[in-house]
C-alpha cells in the first residue's frame, strides 16, 4: 500500500513538476503569476485529442504538433495580452487578473468546442503494469516520470549553458541592465513563453495518456503548478522539480489517512504553511524577501 502511494505520488509529482518548470521559466522573465499557463496545458491535451483521435494522425507527429501549437498559444497570450500591459507598467495584480481573464475565456472556449464531457487519448484497454518493489507501474507512468526528468535536465542545461538561457537569467535578474547590454527583453520573454508553454502542452498530453481530458483540467493543474513552484522556491528550476515531487508525495501520502477528496485542501494548507513560515521555499533565493 505505502509503496503504491509513494509511486502514485511520484507520478502525480512528475506532472506537477513539468507544469511548475514551465511556469518557472516564464515567471523568471515576467515576474507575475501567469495563471493562463493552466489553460495552455488543457489546450495541449485537446490539441493532441484533435490530431490523434479525431484526425487519426500518427501519435508521434500529433504530439509534436500539439506541443508546437501550445508554444504558439503561449506566445500569442503574451503578445496580445501581457505585452500591451507591460507598456502601461502596471502592477502584478493587474497582470494576474488579466491572466484569470485569459484562463476563463480559453477554458470556456474549449468547453464550447469540445463539450463538457470527459474525453481520453487512450485507444485500447489499459495494459497491465509491471511489478516494482511491491507497487504496480504502467508503461505510461514510466513515460511520465522519465519525461519529467528529461525535460528538467534539458531546461536546466538550456538555462545554464546556452546564450538564450543566460539572456533569460539576465532579464530575470536585472531587466534594465539587460537592456543596457543589448538584450531584447521582449524577444527573450517571447522565447520563455514558447519554452514554458511547450512544457505545459507536453504535461497536458502526458496526463491525458494516463487519465482523462476535460475543459476544467487546467485549473487544478495551474494551482498545483503554482504551489509546487512556490514551495520549491519561486524562480528556481530545480526548486520547481523538487516542489512538484514534494507536493505529489505529500498529497498522496496524505490520502493514506484521509479521503481522496481532500487533496486540494492538503495542497493549499502546505502552501499557506510555507508562505507563512518559509516564504522563500525549499530552494528559495533571498531576493524574494523584499516582496513578501
Amino acid at each position: 500500500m505505502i509503496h503504491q502511494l509513494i509511486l502514485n505520488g511520484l507520478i502525480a509529482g512528475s506532472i506537477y513538476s513539468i507544469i511548475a518548470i514551465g511556469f518557472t521559466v516564464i515567471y523568471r522573465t515576467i515576474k507575475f503569476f501567469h495563471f493562463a499557463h493552466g489553460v495552455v496545458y488543457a489546450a495541449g491535451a485537446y490539441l493532441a485529442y484533435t490530431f490523434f483521435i479525431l484526425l487519426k494522425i500518427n501519435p508521434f507527429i500529433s504530439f509534436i504538433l500539439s506541443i508546437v501549437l501550445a508554444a504558439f498559444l503561449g506566445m500569442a497570450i503574451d503578445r496580445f495580452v501581457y505585452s500591451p500591459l507591460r507598456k502601461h507598467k502596471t502592477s502584478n495584480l493587474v497582470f494576474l487578473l488579466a491572466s484569470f481573464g485569459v484562463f476563463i475565456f480559453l477554458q470556456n472556449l474549449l468547453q464550447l468546442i469540445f463539450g463538457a464531457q470527459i474525453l481520453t487519448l487512450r485507444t485500447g484497454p489499459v495494459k497491465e503494469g509491471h511489478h516494482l518493489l511491491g507497487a504496480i507501474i504502467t508503461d505510461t507512468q514510466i513515460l511520465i516520470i522519465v519525461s519529467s526528468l528529461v525535460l528538467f535536465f534539458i531546461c536546466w542545461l538550456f538555462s545554464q549553458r546556452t546564450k538564450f538561457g543566460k539572456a533569460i537569467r539576465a532579464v530575470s535578474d536585472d531587466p534594465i541592465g539587460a537592456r543596457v547590454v543589448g538584450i531584447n527583453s521582449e524577444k527573450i520573454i517571447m522565447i520563455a513563453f514558447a519554452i514554458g508553454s511547450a512544457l505545459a502542452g507536453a504535461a497536458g498530453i502526458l496526463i491525458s495518456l494516463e487519465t482523462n481530458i476535460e475543459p476544467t483540467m487546467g485549473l487544478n493543474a495551474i494551482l498545483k503548478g503554482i504551489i509546487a513552484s512556490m514551495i520549491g522556491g519561486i524562480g528556481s528550476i530545480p526548486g520547481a522539480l523538487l516542489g512538484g515531487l514534494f507536493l505529489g508525495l505529500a498529497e498522496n501520502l496524505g490520502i493514506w489517512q484521509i479521503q481522496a477528496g481532500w487533496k486540494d485542501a492538503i495542497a493549499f494548507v502546505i502552501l499557506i504553511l510555507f508562505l507563512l513560515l518559509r516564504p522563500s521555499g525549499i530552494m528559495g533565493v533571498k531576493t524574494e524577501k523584499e516582496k513578501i
Partner: protein
Amino acid sequence: MEYLIHILIISGIYIILTLSLNLIVGFTGLAALGHIAFACVGAYTSSLLALNLGVSPWVGLLIGAILASIIGAIVSFPSLRLKGDYLAIATFGLGVIVYSIAKNWVGLTRGPMGLPGIPAFKIFGYEINNVWAYLVLVFIFVIITFIVIRNITKSPFGRILTAVREDEIAAEAMGKNINKYKLIVFVVGAFFAGIAGSLYAHYISFIDPSSFTIMESITVLLMVVFGGMASLKGSLVGGSLLVILPELLRFLGMPSSVAAPLRQMIYGLLLVILMIWRPQGLLGKYRFK
C-alpha cells in the same frame, strides 16, 4: 415576469457580495480572491441550523454571518504578512479549502448531494416565498449593506483604510495599527458576504458546493473591478449589469450548453479588456499598484 424578478433578486445578492468585497479590495487595497467562501459559510450555517435544529432563518442568518466573520478574521492573518499576488494566491487557497470542506465533509454538509428543502424566511408567521416579497427583502439588505459600508468608508476610519491602501508604511508611521484595520475590514466584509450566502440559500431552498466554486469568487472580483475599485456606486452597477447582461443570451434562444460557456467567455474577455484599457473600472477611483 417572475423570471425577471428572480434575476433582480440574484443580482441583489451579488451586489451585497460586490459591495463587501469592494471594502476589502477597492478601499483597503488587499487582493482577496476567496470571497465566495464567506458566502458559503453563511449559507451552510443558516441552512444546517434551520434543517437540523429548526432554528429560525433570521437567527441562522445572523449566526452564519458571525461565523463567516470569524473565518474572515482567520483569512486576514495571511494579509498581515503577504502582499499583492502572494496574498491573492493565499486567499485563493482559503477559498479552495472552504469549498473542499463543503464538498468532502459529507457527514455535515451531505457533500455534492447538497442540502434540499431549506425553509424560507418568515415574518409574523407568513413565509416569504413570493418573489416580489423576497425582492423587497433582498433590496432592504442591499440598502443596509450600502449604508454601512458607505459610512465606514466616509468616516475617519475609512480614511485610514485609504492610507493603508496608498502607503502602508506611512500609515504605520502615523501610529496606526494597520494589522487591526486589515482584520476589521476582513471581518466586516465577510459578515456581509455571509448574509448574502444565507439570503441565497433560503431563497433557492437548495445549496450544494457547486454554487461556491473559486470561479464564483473571480466573478465577484470582476464585478468589483468592472464597476469600479473603491466606488460603491460602481459596485451597484457591476453587481447588476454583470448578472443581467448575460441573461440576454438566454433570450436570444441559445441552449444552456452554449449560453453557459459563452457567458463565462464574456466575463473572461471583459476582464482582459478592463485590465488593458481601464484597470480602475467604470466608476473607479483606484487601481492596483
